[in-house]
């Protein structure tokens, strides 16, 4: 058996979809963030896989992933800060409570 590219892409895609699913279904905001991490991670893998399989002569995908990891870290940090801010006021981080503004 040859592990062609598709073998890597399918699990990645599943991972991405799991992230989507989690993001859409979890009530806990941190859980939603965790799901987001899954999605970002899946994207990273995609880049790496494409780079490795299709364009082995360069490192754009790899470096993109590198920076994406940094960006993901920054995003997470900021999001957690905001969530904690909410938690302080409401003692609760249930996302379903945050729907006062609508229509």
């Amino acid at each position: 058996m040859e592990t062609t590219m598709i073998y890597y892409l399918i699990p990645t895609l599943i991972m991405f979809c799991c992230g989507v699913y989690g993001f859409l279904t979890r009530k806990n905001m941190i859980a939603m963030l965790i799901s987001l991490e899954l999605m970002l991670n899946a994207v990273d893998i995609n880049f790496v896989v494409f780079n490795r399989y299709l364009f082995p002569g360069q490192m754009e995908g790899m470096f993109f992933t590198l920076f994406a990891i940094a960006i993901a870290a920054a995003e997470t940090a900021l999001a957690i800060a905001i969530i904690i801010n909410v938690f302080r006021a409401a003692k609760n981080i249930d996302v379903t409570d945050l729907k006062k503004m609508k229509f």
Partner: protein
Amino acid sequence: MDYSQFLVMKQEIGLLAVFLIVFLYDTFMPKRSLGALGTVSSVLFALFVAYGFCPSVFDSPVETAFSGMYATSAVIANIKTILNIGALIVMIQAMRWADQDLVRIRRGEFYELLLTTLFGMYLMISARHFLLFIIGLETASLPLAAMVAFDKHRYESREAAVKYVLTAVFSSAIFLMGLSFVYGLTGSLYFGKIATALMMGDGINALLVVALAFVISGIGFKLSLVPFHLWTADVYQGAPTPVTSYLSVISKGAAAFAFLVVLWQVFGCVYTFAWEWMLYALIILTITIGNLFAIRQRNMKRFLAFSSISQAGYIMLGVIAFNGMGMAALMYYILVYIFSNLAAFGVIGAIENNSGKVNMEDYNGLYKTNPRLAFTMMLAMFSLAGIPPFAGFFSKFFIFTSAINQGSVAIYVLVLIALINTIVSLYYYLLVVKAMFISDEESTVATFRSACSERFALWICVGGILLLGVVSCIYNHLLEISF
């Protein structure tokens, strides 16, 4: 290593310099001198804006740096200057708000974050490489989440921040997914190389279309195109008014231009195959749904949020035009939109700061108590609705003209739909005018004198609304430098 390449990035460096000075001033100056922080940063920034009119920047030649990762030209320099002007007005308008007791402690950060997000927008505009573009995009949006959360004592601010940050991160995930497909298809992240690869490649395919849809959705999120707009209203309503105005004009303007650059430079060769039709759908949806929602709004900020959504649809007409006129019209539209919308937000902010009222009912009879504010608001509304002789008319007319220049029958239909939508938009803009001028009820907002800074900012806006259209050289200049 050739670090002299950084010198090409005059504006970015200037902006960072301002940022650093403000940062250092905020951090190290004694507490009692911090009262002048707003003034200091505004003055500094004003100087920086003025720098944008230096010939070397204003007529900046086409230059690239870092092997084409970064580009600048007269157009880019000018759009940055346009954004600067808007940011300056926002800064001036924000002074009063930033001096409030509950915000004062964080006002330094407000200015710092504002400047860094502006830096992010610069990167978005100048980037010719998707990595840089992503970094710019994130720099432009993540700190904004913190700014949205600035009014910690207000529940709405918190809710808005959560909504903003979560959707922003989600959208960037989608965007990145799209990018990864693009990378897989073309093997590069340089705009130029992608374009070449697409041209060389076997044309259009499903993967490219899906990738394109993801990319458009990512930037469409910033532009709040329907259906990627749902965060907009809640965030605008919840955020502090200066942040809302910043979000609605500067952030949107930058995103619009970046969108144009990405679509034209990267995906230009698949215009008719792919994104033309996507944009048709998006524009119609954006304008229509934005308008439909705006009709019912009672909260002024939320109302302007939906209005700005539909305005984004009009801005997109410049993108779909896919010609130099479109670019000029888009820039001009952004410029006019900055002045009009900031005038509206300036009035809202002034009233909110004074009486805490943001609902349309509170504007009833405003003309009797605060005629000047009401008048300014009316000008803003007329300009947004595209009524001559105010600037909004010209910008709308030009953007329609540029779109029709594209020439297909479909574009006529699109423009007709957009035009019919202007009637709906006129309706709700007139609702505000009606509340202020016609409504017989006693005003709940007492007569007051707004702060110097607010008045100054409003005067600038009014001047812009009145003059930008009639003084033709501005548009002519923009058209000249557009390609």
